């Protein structure tokens, strides 16, 4: 225990990126997290990128909806997972936990989506799939794309997937720290709760007609 207590004091950049919740939680995490969700949504609006689930990211060619729809999606994705953990975390938590820590750390865990939204601004990420779709569907005219588009597309998607993995890892660590839950039981619980959250968000977006890429 003493080694981890000492390690927790180290505020190096790597520790902050992989597990910021050892030093940031509660109201501070909530403020930073919500700011990140709003910023990510504004960038996503420009990038035509929808976060239609707890870990989803979807780019569409055109949008007509206002910016606040994107912010609403970001807030819903955060609130659904945090609420599920807050309500059922006692099944795996080793002690009592504060709701402000659950909601705050889950909000902070969504900061990588700012990076994902920014990456979605890459034109190649929409241009190249449109090109491939036109080629396979044999529609005319086939859009002209630069030769380097495929490389930028592959690099962009690889980076986005890596960032999504990082975000999911942060969500798990946020849950682990805020609820003091560890081990295989905690991992299994988190996977189950994430799947349930995905189902809930999909139902919500479908029911309230927020499924915008029809």
């Amino acid at each position, binding site marked *: 225990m003493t080694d981890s207590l000492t390690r927790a004091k180290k505020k190096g950049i790597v520790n902050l990126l992989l597990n910021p*919740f050892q030093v940031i939680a509660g109201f501070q995490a909530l403020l930073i997290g919500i700011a990140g969700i709003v910023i990510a949504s504004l960038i996503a609006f420009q990038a035509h990128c929808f976060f239609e689930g707890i870990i989803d990211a979807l780019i569409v060619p055109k949008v007509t909806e206002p910016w606040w729809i994107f912010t609403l999606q970001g807030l819903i994705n955060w609130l659904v997972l945090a609420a599920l953990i807050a309500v059922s975390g006692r099944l795996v938590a080793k002690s009592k936990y504060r709701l402000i820590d659950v909601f705050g750390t889950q909000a902070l865990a969504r900061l990588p989506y700012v990076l994902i939204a920014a990456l979605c601004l890459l034109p190649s990420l929409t241009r190249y799939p449109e090109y491939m779709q036109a080629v396979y569907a044999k529609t005319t005219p086939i859009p002209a794309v630069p030769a380097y588009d495929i490389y930028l597309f592959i690099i962009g998607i690889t980076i986005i997937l890596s960032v999504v993995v990082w975000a999911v890892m942060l969500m798990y660590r946020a849950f682990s720290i805020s609820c003091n839950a560890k081990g295989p039981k905690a991992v299994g619980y988190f996977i189950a709760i994430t799947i349930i959250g995905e189902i809930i968000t999909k139902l919500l977006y479908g029911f309230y007609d927020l499924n915008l890429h029809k």
Partner: protein
Amino acid sequence: MKIKKHSNLPAQCPSCGYELSIDRLVCDSCSTVVQGNYSIPTFARLSADEQLLCINFITTGGSLKELAKIYGISYPTIRNHIDILIEKLKTMENGEHQHTAHGGEQND
């Protein structure tokens, strides 16, 4: 207030791992020697950092917020460390009760 930690009293034999006991106590003032067989108290069997955590916990009046500020970590992190310490203390106390029970049976 942060209290400095002192050197750690070994509680287990470095050779075989068995529990150590205190055989001799000496007065620094008058050199009086007290000899007997005393078991090391539960608190003294904690590591230096764990003892410091307990002392800091008491001196902050049990405020985990204050304790988190002292260590520069978040509230849930310090709470988790306290939970680990509580489990360790319970395990040590249970071990002592079993040791006392077995010792009583032998004396009978």
